[in-house]
């Protein structure tokens, strides 16, 4: 909290109540489905019932004859406009509407535009599609079998289901460290396919103005500016004639980063009919067709000395990307940031290799608050450390404490090249253990074990690299990941900050106002934050990967400081002093040594707009703009402890306590930070205990509704116990780090470690998520259930 205590600043940090709440509490938010435009039509998508089939014919005559249907769009029609395929965010293409084949269940086949929501749905049933079923590849471990059917025969030269091979680290050094190790522990593990399932599904309202040629798309997007450029590239529309509005968004979690066929179909529908077209998917469509998360088959190996010094880590990953490689991550990194998998430990060497494959499953992969696959890396290393502790007969807390990076090692370059910025890891673990009462918990566990009760204590320690990212290393479709910010100061001192990222619940309208207020001696109430509308905001890459505060937040600081420096020159003219004789104190510019002589930003703004004769270098107002290109990622971290009670007779896991200590640097609004952590913990518990998108052998999605895809409720979630340490980020202008995904990344493995810890006396060594009662029970019987594909 050092910056908050700095008297030179405005003291605007703290648990300020949210500005956003006023509209949401009254039911006056504006989500995409709340938008009504004059003459608006409604779209619906016909989806494939089959996971892999050749399309023989599509008959739309009956649908077109429906009295309320205005248009039916097929893949063939899009093909004529060269719109049947669109680029993904990973240098692949994805079918907008299928032309040759369908490649996963739920794939988009046709789009109906009708006068009302229900008629559009009715007409879907009037479309006749003739399919020729093809053999299905659901099991990623069989995708590269020579006999496996080739899913992507649309790609020239593609003869199998292989997408990429990628590796990081020093293989020879890692092999040498393993060869010299006393102890090597290995484990296969699956981080199963999950889905972010924001409570608001995806949708769009597209309106092409036939007179001006201006296209406006209100869409559920986490990246409105990137989407604008994509529409221009895909549809060949001039980019200045495209306006993307991301209004209130009912949760994103990465699900709303990619471009979806429905958005483009709504645009085409509006162009064809000359009227606005709304498309909003239902829950099953969201779960079956939009960006999934994880699906990483991992083999981990950890090497150590007999006395518990961890030497090296090795991982081999089979990555199931579904039918199209639609991962949303910086394009240099086909496995995202997985290779930060060495985690929080001081290792000699590490090496990982990742192979990506196609399967007949929905596309996606990088979503659900994973910090670009750091979720998978953290899961791997934290499971391996626990397995090593069990092998060595050491307490997992002791083993972690002995191997954590030490404060004096920062900045620290890990074996795979990431430069961790700052941290005091042992302190965070100590704080978590104190909060948990760790020794007492272990005593209680021993007593319960003696009574035949199965209590488990699970730890995790995670490090993330978030805030993508430095332009030299990170881009999405060639767009560097820097963010703009504009700040206008009105004559009365009211401020309007325009930012490129937008909120899906993170509270930017409040936090970013606090940032500016803090820098300029204003109240957050004096600062309006504009976001989510590409016509009103500067270019930037959007809100995902915990990048808002690290990148756009830094831009807001920098632009506010530009305004402040401009104000200094004006204040000097007002006070008849030299600018260098002024100092910024108590939220205003004052004459050094004569604090009675000072001017606030409001006074200076009025003067800048008045007849005051302005000195050279000031054009009139105080407004400023900037683009922030982060020098590095920020590296938040945390120590989590989970306590469970397991009934080995039923496999039921009762989550009793969850202690989370996060260090995300300086906290601008600690209330909002804690809310972010709470939500991420619930996600982690959900993934660990119940959430899974699985398929049968025919490629039928078995997680296609909230009756099948279980999410944690208020009864499965304990009352979270939070703690914090604050280690400022040395390169962020206010020392802040990202936090939005920390808990989702760090918590699942703490739950798994706790369950395995509980059942170790029964011989359990590992069990894959989700740890449903049935899966736990089966694992105890020595017949673990596969979470990726259901047999039979």
């Amino acid at each position, binding site marked *: 909290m050092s910056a908050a205590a700095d008297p030179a600043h405005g003291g605007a940090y703290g648990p300020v109540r949210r500005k956003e709440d006023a509209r949401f509490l009254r039911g006056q938010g504006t989500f995409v489905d709340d938008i009504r435009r004059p003459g608006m039509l409604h779209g619906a998508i016909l989806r494939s019932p089959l996971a892999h089939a050749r399309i023989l014919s599509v008959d739309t005559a009956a649908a077109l004859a429906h009295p309320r249907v205005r248009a039916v769009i097929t893949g063939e029609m899009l093909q004529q406009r060269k719109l049947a395929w669109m680029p993904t965010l990973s240098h692949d293409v994805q079918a907008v509407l299928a032309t040759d084949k369908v490649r996963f269940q739920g794939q988009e086949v046709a789009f109906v535009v009708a006068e009302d929501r229900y008629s559009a749905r009715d007409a879907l049933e009037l479309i006749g599609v003739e399919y020729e079923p093809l053999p299905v590849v659901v099991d990623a471990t069989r995708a590269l079998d020579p006999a496996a059917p080739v899913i992507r025969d649309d790609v020239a030269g593609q003869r199998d289901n292989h997408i990429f091979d990628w590796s990081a680290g020093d293989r020879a050094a890692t092999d040498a460290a393993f060869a010299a190790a006393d102890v090597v522990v290995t484990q296969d593990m699956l981080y199963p396919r999950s889905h972010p399932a924001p409570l608001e599904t995806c949708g769009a309202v597209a309106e092409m103005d036939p007179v001006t040629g201006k296209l406006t798309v209100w869409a559920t997007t986490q990246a409105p500016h990137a989407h604008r450029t994509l529409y221009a590239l895909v549809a060949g529309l001039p980019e200045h004639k495209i306006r993307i509005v991301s209004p209130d968004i009912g949760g994103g979690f990465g699900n709303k980063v990619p471009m979806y066929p429905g958005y483009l179909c709504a645009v085409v529908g509006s162009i064809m009919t000359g009227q606005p077209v709304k498309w909003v998917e239902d829950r099953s469509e969201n779960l079956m067709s939009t960006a999934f998360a994880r699906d990483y088959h991992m083999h981990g190996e950890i090497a150590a000395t007999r006395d518990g010094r961890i030497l090296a880590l090795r991982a081999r990953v089979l990555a199931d990307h579904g039918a199209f490689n639609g991962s949303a991550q910086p394009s240099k990194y086909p496995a995202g940031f997985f290779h930060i998998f060495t985690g929080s430990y001081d290792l000699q060497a590490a090496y990982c290799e990742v192979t990506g494959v196609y399967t007949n499953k929905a596309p996606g992969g990088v979503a659900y608050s994973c910090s670009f696959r750091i979720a998978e890396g953290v899961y791997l290393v934290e499971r391996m450390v626990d397995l090593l502790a069990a092998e060595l007969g050491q307490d997992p807390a002791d083993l972690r404490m002995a191997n954590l990076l030490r404060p004096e090692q920062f900045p620290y370059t890990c074996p795979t090249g990431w430069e961790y910025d700052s941290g005091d890891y042992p302190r965070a673990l100590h704080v978590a253990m104190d909060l948990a009462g760790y020794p007492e918990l272990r005593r209680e566990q021993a007593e319960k074990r003696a009574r035949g009760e199965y209590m488990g204590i699970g730890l995790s320690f995670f490090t993330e690299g978030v805030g993508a990212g430095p332009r030299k290393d990170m881009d999405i479709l060639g767009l560097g990941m820097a963010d703009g910010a504009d700040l206008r100061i009105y004559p009365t001192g009211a401020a309007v900050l325009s930012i490129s990222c937008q909120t899906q619940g993170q509270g930017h309208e409040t936090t970013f106002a606090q940032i500016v207020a803090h820098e300029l001696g204003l109240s957050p109430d004096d600062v309006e934050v504009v976001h989510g509308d590409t016509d009103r905001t500067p270019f930037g890459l959007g809100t995902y990967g915990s990048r808002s505060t690290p990148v756009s937040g830094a831009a807001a600081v920098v632009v506010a400081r530009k305004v402040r420096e401009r104000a200094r020159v004006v204040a000097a003219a007002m006070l008849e002093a030299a600018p260098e004789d002024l100092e910024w104190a108590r939220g205003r510019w004052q004459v050094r040594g004569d604090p009675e002589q000072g001017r606030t930003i409001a006074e200076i703004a009025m003067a800048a707009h008045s007849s005051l004769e302005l000195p050279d270098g000031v054009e009139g107002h105080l407004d400023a703009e900037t683009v922030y290109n982060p020098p590095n990622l920020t590296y938040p971290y945390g120590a989590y402890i989970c306590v469970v009670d397991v009934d080995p007779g039923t496999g039921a896991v009762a989550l009793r306590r969850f202690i989370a200590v996060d260090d995300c640097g300086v906290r601008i609004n600690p209330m909002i930070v804690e809310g972010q952590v709470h939500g991420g*913990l619930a996600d982690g518990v959900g993934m660990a205990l119940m959430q899974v998108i699985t398929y049968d052998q025919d490629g039928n999605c078995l997680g296609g509704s909230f009756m099948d895809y279980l999410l944690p*409720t208020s009864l499965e979630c304990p009352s979270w116990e939070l703690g914090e340490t604050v280690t400022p980020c040395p390169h962020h202008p206010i020392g802040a780090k990202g936090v939005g995904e920390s808990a989702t990344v760090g918590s699942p493995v703490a739950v798994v470690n706790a369950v395995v810890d509980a059942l170790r006396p029964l011989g359990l060594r590992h069990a894959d998520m989700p740890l449903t009662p049935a899966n736990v029970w089966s694992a105890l019987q020595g017949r673990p259930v596969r979470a990726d594909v259901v047999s039979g």
Partner: protein
Amino acid sequence: MTVNGVSHTRDVEARLLLIHFLRDDLGLTGSHWGCDTSNCGACVVWLDETPVKSCTVLAAMADGRRVRTVEDLAHGGRLDPVQQGFAECHGLQCGFCTPGMMMTARWLLDHHPDPSTEQIREALSGQLCRCTGYENIVRSVRWASEYEASERGTGRRGAGQPGPAAGAGARPAGEGG
């Protein structure tokens, strides 16, 4: 039907869902459509004083009945204590589940003015929030409960404490059609 005290008469398709009638026909977009299967509760409104999931109630089933939505919680520019509690305790993030959560919370406090944490959690357990991990929603409801108790304390000095909280049965009765 009467919605938030205003009578509406419409001819509707037999299959029209109450949530779509409220949102599309009446323009009351505060209630949301989240899942279709009565699992998420973003669509919770009151039907004759009972919270229901309006994605699984036909509009025609509300014929002649009273519906109350989130738009009716605040009165005369004054927020309901439940709304105040959600603002005070950061009980909402994206705001999508919030209207449904608040309608259930209002029902709970009307029937159980001093619910235990367990009763609050049980009452909300038929609804999903993807942002908050529920903790601050529980705190928000508790805040509203305590606020209302203090209001009663000042308004009815000497009238004694509110009745003891009921045991089981805090879950809203209606789960929709």
